[in-house]
């Protein structure tokens, strides 16, 4: 009368009805379960997949395959003879349905080896009998699953006979605790070995006190010992509760009516794990990790190779930052379970309702909740939660586990520790090195068994260095001179000439305009013209004069606040007025004024500190230790300007200064005011709203002020000294404080990026927890400290970089090299890099002899396709692009008129920045449009 097959079809229709009705029914019957049977003779495991439904469409993959792509329909048991990951799911209409079963069938050295039981297991819980302990199969949390052997009221003691001596270094005993029905972990596990089965020598034991445990938990007791050849392994597990017996009575650990009445002191399952072959490789900073990761990707089916020493900064933190910080990070408002993993105090702190648990207990993988939670198969408990879509890979789980095992050594985020100049590393062929830069590069190459490539040809080298330092190609004459110069310092002469040419300042300025979000219009809807070019003239001049970087920045941030500020220093502050300004009617003035202050804050943070502080505008930063409070403290430096949110058409925003030939003659000789213009007004910074208070803005909204804040800088970088004035000048002092861990690193990294194409920290805008790690951390620090020690001499650093052997290498790539280092992280060759948008156009002008070598002045309007402005303007102001005539058609590209809403189209095609906001690194793309522009 009862026909499950028939019912199972009807009930699936019923399930659909439940779905229509919004009834939350148990999906348990969709689960695929696996059952394993061992073929003792052939040492193979037969894996059976099943589901409650008869004729279920079960599909599976083995190893790394993707269940959505390559699933194999299950029909007969799968035969396995090595450690294998199995993933299986019920399929419906070719889609996986329900939870995916993931199980690892493990093989070890004791598979199918005979076990001699010195104390016999319970007949009611006999598992699969005499081979249960060595059959590779793991028990589940269900103690009735037929896989567990139990010892009732007695110790477990047994001997495994490996037949012949084998190298063993680890024994694992799998066990379960489920105190409800009186199933307990052992309180001691003892392993002894022997080769004659008579005299046994103890090689390790784990002892623990009995502890109350409300969970059903699976745990492996792992005993490690020095590798040795053994034949017999004796394993003993003991359960003693002594004083705790009383506690049991008091606590009434029993159950209500559902529980079966029996007592099992503990249930035990044992298996022995393969001893990993010892790797000879030594840990060497992050690149080891990269390599290990790469290997693990290709090789995961066999073995996961972990670094010998797991490093917090280079291995652990990137995982925590990506997968854990969003709930266990700096943002207090979304922090779960009171656990904070981004600080040392938080990570080691007691957690849980009774503060009786720890996420991380150095060295203890058994009790560290982190290890348990990432590895547990219980989806309710597993971290990251399934719903977060942030799964850990097996490699990452093993890495975190090993880190805890090795003592969970904490290190502060590298970028928040001030740089230290280390001695140059020793290299085996110092003659290859031209200067200190090379020592660091060659050292790393030697570790990888790589060498520098041969030097590039002179023709290529002069072209490369000309573009990198001036943005222009060498002239034929330059080339001839260099080729014919056989003196030892011929190349150095070229470098010096380039650094001293006016084109150097133009090229450097061209990069800085991206950082400063320079444009010739106000942006937003109306996007009318503004005059900021005198500030651009100053930038060019500052670079050409090699104004030290600390002054270059100090003047731009706070020139107006310097004692007896010169007009030039005030002009420099135009930097912080390059942001967009709206002219649209009907906007809320304060809302936009706040926008401008936010822009300055974010620009300063990104350009000078390499921090994504803007994340803390609406809430505490999710990844870096920057609170929202600190964000607005930083913001308050820029919040004293008496400015308007919305300006009228043709209004020149206050505060500004007037520049006439008189001022130019007196103090601003770098401003190239054309004869046709009498005067210009330039926006500058001025703290003329000193009474304005700054508040934390709730959710970053201008009209939701909460707590008042005072000017301050992020504490994690460097506490803001009492001695500094609480204004932009103080901020500049803070930035160039010797202990500021970021300013110098961020600056040299950007210079490195300019010369080598990619920064030592490839995320040049983010040195925080989410940023990439430096490929050569010691080199970065060496350069940073040197830059400071050398008086922030930018030309000197650039010369150092381009004079290095590393820079002068050929960019020729061999297949072997490409295999080892496809991204050229180690610099065993020169990078092949794209020319920037400006360089491409300037190159064309130069080689065709059209380029006009004239410095500075107002922006120019060279050729651009017709009709673009008309298409995209609001009907106000700049509605028509009127092309210039004469020499203005052939000026260098940094002078091209930059309309924010319609930037020069050819430049955009070649990845120029939009100048809507600060940008420290351009994209590098290849698109067919580029060919069309050419």
């Amino acid at each position, binding site marked *: 009368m009862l026909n499950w097959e028939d019912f199972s079809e009807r009930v699936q229709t019923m399930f659909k009805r439940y779905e229509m009705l919004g009834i939350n029914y148990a999906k348990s019957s969709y689960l695929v379960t696996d059952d394993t049977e061992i073929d003792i003779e052939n040492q193979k495991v037969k894996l059976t997949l099943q589901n409650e439904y008869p004729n279920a469409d079960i599909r599976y993959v083995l190893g790394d395959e993707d269940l959505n792509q390559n699933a194999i329909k299950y029909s007969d048991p799968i035969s396995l003879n090595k450690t294998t990951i199995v993933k299986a799911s019920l399929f419906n209409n070719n889609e996986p349905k329900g939870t995916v079963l993931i199980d690892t069938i493990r093989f070890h050295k004791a598979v199918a080896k005979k076990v001699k039981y010195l104390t016999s297991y319970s007949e009611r819980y006999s598992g699969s009998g005499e081979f249960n302990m060595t059959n590779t199969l793991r028990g589940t949390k269900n103690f009735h*699953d037929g896989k567990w052997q139990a010892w009732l009221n007695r110790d477990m003691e047994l001997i495994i006979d490996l037949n012949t001596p084998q190298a063993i270094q680890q024994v694992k005993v799998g066990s379960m605790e489920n105190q409800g029905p009186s199933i307990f972990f052992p309180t001691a596990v003892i392993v002894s070995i022997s080769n004659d089965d008579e005299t046994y020598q103890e090689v390790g034991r784990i002892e623990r006190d009995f502890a109350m445990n409300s969970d059903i938990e699976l745990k492996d007791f792992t005993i490690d010992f020095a590798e040795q050849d053994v034949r017999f392994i004796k394993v003993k597990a003991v359960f003693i509760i002594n004083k705790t017996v009383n506690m049991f009575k008091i606590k009434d650990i029993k159950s209500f009516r559902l529980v079966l009445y029996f007592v099992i002191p503990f249930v035990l399952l044992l298996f022995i794990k393969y001893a990993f072959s010892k790797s000879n490789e030594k840990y060497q900073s992050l690149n080891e990790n990269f390599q290990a990761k790469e290997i693990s990707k290709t090789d995961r089916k066999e073995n996961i190779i972990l670094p010998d020493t797991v490093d917090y900064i280079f291995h652990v933190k990137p995982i925590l930052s990506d997968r854990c910080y969003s709930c266990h990070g700096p943002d207090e408002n979304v922090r779960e379970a009171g656990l904070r993993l981004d600080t040392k105090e938080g990570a080691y702190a007691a957690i849980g309702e009774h503060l009786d648990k720890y996420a991380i207990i150095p060295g203890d993988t058994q009790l560290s909740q982190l290890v348990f939670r990432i590895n547990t198969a219980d989806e309710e408990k597993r971290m990251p939660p399934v719903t977060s879509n942030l799964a850990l890979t097996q490699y990452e789980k093993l890495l975190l586990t090993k880190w805890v095992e090795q003592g969970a050594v904490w290190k502060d985020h590298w970028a928040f520790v001030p740089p230290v100049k280390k001695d140059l590393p020793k290299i085996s062929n110092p003659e290859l090195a031209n200067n200190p830069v090379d020592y660091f590069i060659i050292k790393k190459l030697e570790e990888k068994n790589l060498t520098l490539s041969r030097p590039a040809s002179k023709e290529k080298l002069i072209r490369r260095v000309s573009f990198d330092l001036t943005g222009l190609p060498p002239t034929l004459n330059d080339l001839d001179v260099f080729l014919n110069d056989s003196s030892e310092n011929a190349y150095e002469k070229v470098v010096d000439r380039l650094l001293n040419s006016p084109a150097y300042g133009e090229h450097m300025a061209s990069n800085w305009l991206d950082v400063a979000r320079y444009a010739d219009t106000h942006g937003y809807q109306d996007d009318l013209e503004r005059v900021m070019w005198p500030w651009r003239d100053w930038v060019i001049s500052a670079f050409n004069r090699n104004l030290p970087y600390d002054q270059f920045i100090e003047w731009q941030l706070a020139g107006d606040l310097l004692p007896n500020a010169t007009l030039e220093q005030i002009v420099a502050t135009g930097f912080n007025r390059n942001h967009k300004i709206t002219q649209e009617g009907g906007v809320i003035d304060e809302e936009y004024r706040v926008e401008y202050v936010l822009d300055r804050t974010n620009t300063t943070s990104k350009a000078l500190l390499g921090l994504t502080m803007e994340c803390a505008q609406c809430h505490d930063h999710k990844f870096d230790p920057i609170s929202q409070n600190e964000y607005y403290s930083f913001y308050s430096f820029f919040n004293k300007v008496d400015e308007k949110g919305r300006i009228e058409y043709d209004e020149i925003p206050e505060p500004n200064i007037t520049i006439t030939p008189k001022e130019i003659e007196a103090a601003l000789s770098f401003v190239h005011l054309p004869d046709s213009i009498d005067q210009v007004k330039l926006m500058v910074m001025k703290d003329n709203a000193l009474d304005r208070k700054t508040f934390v803005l709730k959710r970053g909204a201008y009209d939701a002020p909460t707590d008042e804040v005072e000017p301050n800088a992020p504490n994690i970088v460097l506490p803001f000294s009492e001695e500094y004035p609480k204004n932009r000048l103080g901020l500049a002092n803070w930035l160039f404080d010797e202990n500021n861990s970021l300013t110098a690193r961020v600056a040299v990294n950007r210079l490195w990026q300019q010369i080598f194409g990619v920064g030592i920290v490839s995320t040049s805008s983010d040195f925080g927890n989410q940023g990439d790690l430096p490929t050569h951390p010691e080199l970065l620090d060496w350069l940073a400290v040197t830059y400071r020690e050398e008086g922030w001499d930018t030309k000197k650093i650039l010369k150092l970089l381009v004079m290095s052997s590393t820079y002068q290498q050929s960019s020729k790539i061999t297949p072997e090299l490409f295999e080892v280092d496809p991204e050229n992280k180690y610099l065993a060759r020169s990078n092949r890099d794209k020319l920037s948008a400006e360089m491409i156009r300037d190159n064309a002008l130069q080689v065709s002899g059209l380029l006009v070598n004239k410095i500075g002045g107002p922006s120019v309007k060279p050729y651009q396709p017709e009709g673009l402005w008309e298409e995209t303007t609001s009907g106000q102001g700049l509605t028509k692009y009127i092309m210039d005539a004469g020499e203005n058609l052939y000026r260098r590209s940094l002078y091209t008129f930059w309309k924010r809403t319609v930037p020069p189209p050819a430049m955009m095609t070649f990845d120029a920045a939009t100048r809507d906001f600060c940008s420290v690194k351009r994209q590098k793309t290849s698109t067919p449009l580029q060919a069309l522009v050419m």
Partner: protein
Amino acid sequence: MKLKIFLLIWLLFAISCSKPKVYTEKDIQIIPQPVEVKIQPDEFKFDQNTKFVVSNDEQKKLASELVNKFQKATGWEFEMLDIAPKNNFVQFVNDDNFKSEAYTLVVTSNNITITAGGMAGFLYGLETIKQLLPLEIESSQLVSNVDWVIPNIEIKDEPRFKWRGLMLDLSRHFFDKNYIKKTIDRLAMHKMNVLHLHLVDDQGWRIEIKKYPKLTEIGSWRVDQEDKHWNARAAVSPDQKGTYGGFLTQNDLKEIVQYAQSKNVDVVPEIEMPAHVTSAIASYPYLSCFNNQVAVPSGGVWPLTDIYCAGKETTFEFLENVLLEVMEIFPSKYIHIGGDEATKTNWKKCPHCQKRIKEEGLNNVEELQSYFVKRMERFINSNGKKLIGWDEILEGGLAPDATVMSWRGVKGGIEAAEQGHDVIMTPGTHCYFDHYQGPQNHEPLAIGGFTPLSKVYQFDPVVETMNEEEAALES
């Protein structure tokens, strides 16, 4: 004229010759499986002109549920008529010869007829129609492109068991009135007819008793440790404030009972005694042997030694007063008095209990429990009701007219049936849904066990030697 008639006939012929759709058993997916199903070719099609033919208000009320569902899914508003039109209608036909929950459902291309002896049969007939219709009938919003057809079919159906129940343990986990009403809907959907409310247990008293207000002031609330496994919750003291819990007022319960009646569901109250009553003793310590002040526990308690005193007369006075209010609320023929898992260590020591044993000529505390239950049965019977208890009430002698719920496996059920008692089969192995339903590593926390769907399905309440009549089923 002749030609016209001929044409008409030909046309009719042509239409009727278009191949009717043939349905097979696979197309009929009804739970529970009807007793007899005969499938015919072709189908009945609902459209906006379909009518419902009802002969009284009760039928009208029943029909309106399906009419409303159609309205939600299709926007159609079916008309209800007293007299059948020519075709395209659903009709209720009363036949007093039918057993109370039996019905037949006959579907032809022309109309649908449900024949039954009363409300329950019609309700189940309509439920069957719903399950024959496309799933979209359950949609709460308008759907399009659905053929509202059901196959031509003849179904004869009646339940195998009189008692098809579900127990909700409101004590261990409190459910509010709305959830309970929703549960009643789902019972009706599965043609089940008993909702057994476990209103009293150690961890919470859930029914308002006007004469004993502390039962709900104190007994309904426990210290919140809901985040822990049931058996891992710490012991609490009486001065800790309880925040988890709640109770149903008498009005709530009356509303539930009335709602259930409209769905052919009998609500059976369970008032546990003499054990599983820590919540009552926490409220009125005099109910225990030694007047100990205890707290409402947050989770599992074992063994259950805080039980009612079987010696004091005041205990029975209390219970009778409670049951009088309970019987006032629940019209059900049955009152469940629990009776399980009493650990009688206090009874052995208690002078009142020992006096009772002596006076009543009992041999031991097991017989004292039997005395307790029999005395309660007499009281219940004298109020025109019947007693149900868990299978422990067999111990020390079963009360004469008691019905037994067999929860510790099926043995108690067999034993009671052999003694000629009614039995409800509720073995923990198959009918307890606080068990894991799938592989434990993948399941949310449960009390333990492993009871997958197939295992539940495969339980046949009529075990071994039992007669069909003796058994009923409850989950």
